[in-house]
């Protein structure tokens, strides 16, 4: 259905293939969150890895900072329609986290948990194999609180609500368990290139 009088502003040739359907490119870094920005003090922060209900590894901020670092430069895509190209992150890959815990990925699904009670679900296969990290730095500096600092999940190939801000744990689960936005009508998986925005997409 053509909209009378709408011509639009097309992305350039260089961006056309990189921009998922329904998205527009921004140079800004918009902030979206459901509530207040938690002020997380790193001296009180811990990161817990759980298999089901059972904690199997826990790190303090200092211990976490001593884990091997990985850098990723990726395009990110927010379900609110903006995309940002070539965002540069540094942190601890989920592969290295599992290695440090001395376990292999034990269950097919994962829930990411945040200090404010937020959670989001991701298939475990989408977190390992170099696909995701717990990011500690953005663009060469500690992540600002508004953007999820001190630590946020980075799963750049899924819509960005999956990249939980203020993360403090990963919990492996046998079943795919809907998180905060997934319980509120958003897609369980969230592939931007298949435009999986809402539960019925």
């Amino acid at each position, binding site marked *: 259905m053509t*909209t009378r009088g*709408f*011509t*639009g*502003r097309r992305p350039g040739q260089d961006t056309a293939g990189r921009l998922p359907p329904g998205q*527009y490119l921004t140079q800004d*870094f918009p902030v979206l969150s459901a*509530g*207040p920005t938690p002020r997380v003090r790193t001296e009180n922060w811990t990161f817990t890895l759980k298999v089901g209900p059972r904690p199997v590894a826990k790190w303090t901020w200092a211990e976490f900072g001593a884990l091997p670092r990985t850098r990723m430069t990726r395009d990110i895509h927010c379900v609110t329609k903006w995309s940002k190209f070539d965002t540069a992150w540094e942190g601890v890959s989920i592969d290295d986290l599992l290695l440090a815990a001395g376990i292999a990925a034990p269950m097919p699904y994962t829930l990411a948990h945040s200090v404010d009670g937020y959670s989001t679900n991701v298939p475990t296969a989408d977190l390992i194999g170099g696909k995701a990290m717990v990011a500690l730095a953005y663009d060469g500096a500690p992540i600002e609180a508004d953007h999820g600092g001190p630590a946020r999940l980075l799963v750049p190939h899924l819509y960005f609500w999956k990249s939980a801000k203020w993360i403090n744990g990963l919990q492996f689960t046998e079943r795919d368990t809907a998180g905060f936005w997934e319980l509120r009508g958003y897609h369980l998986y969230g592939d931007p290139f298949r435009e999986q925005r809402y539960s019925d997409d």
Partner: protein
Amino acid sequence: MTTDAPPATPGRWRPATIARIAPLTPHVRSFFLSIDPPPRFQAGQHMDVRLTAPDGYQAQRSYSIASAPGSTVELTIERLADGEVSPFFHDVAVAGDEIEVRGPIGGHFVWQPAMGGPVLLIGGGSGVVPLMSMARHHAAAAPAVPMRLLFSARTWDEVIWRDELLALDARGDGFGLTLALTRDAPRRPGDHGRRVDAAMVADLLAGWPAPPAHVFVCGANPFVGVAVDAVLAAGVPPRRVRTERYGG
């Protein structure tokens, strides 16, 4: 986060006809949409809008609903000078034009009468749009619930729905309005001629018999940051505060 509505299922894209366009301020207009069947929505939800160019190129945006549940969908859109979609609505669209919509969407930034109060709404500029839906719903469905809107606008003339809000304020029910004009002098007792700050929110809440059970803050991200910090500084638990932000 315990009183959220059931999950929203936005459904498929469907046609909507722009039935009427109402200019509200120099940069803000409302677009009343005729949709068959009319969608059921909650106060605070938004719709996705999709426009299609002759060559098939499409653009999507989300716009909050300003009308009260049970009435015609009113999308209120601010014209952004460098925008792609909002200039279409302001400069091109006329009554009778057809667009595509999806929704309603959003199950968190919503207020229902069953949630009760007291409710504090804080809006900056066009961030007032979803809060207007809540204020209108309140007037129609639960006027006794204490609800106050703290609305920050640049000037008196940029107060969207000024006459309607003043009328709601004058009803003498649970609703109250406080204006914070950032580039204008206050015109009414109790209004402010400055940006929202911690002292303003503390003064406002000091007059309340009970702290707010629900706080909804919407606006540009820096505005929301300042307003939320002010609310938390006044002692409101973070879990009672819901935010919706736009811009970088």
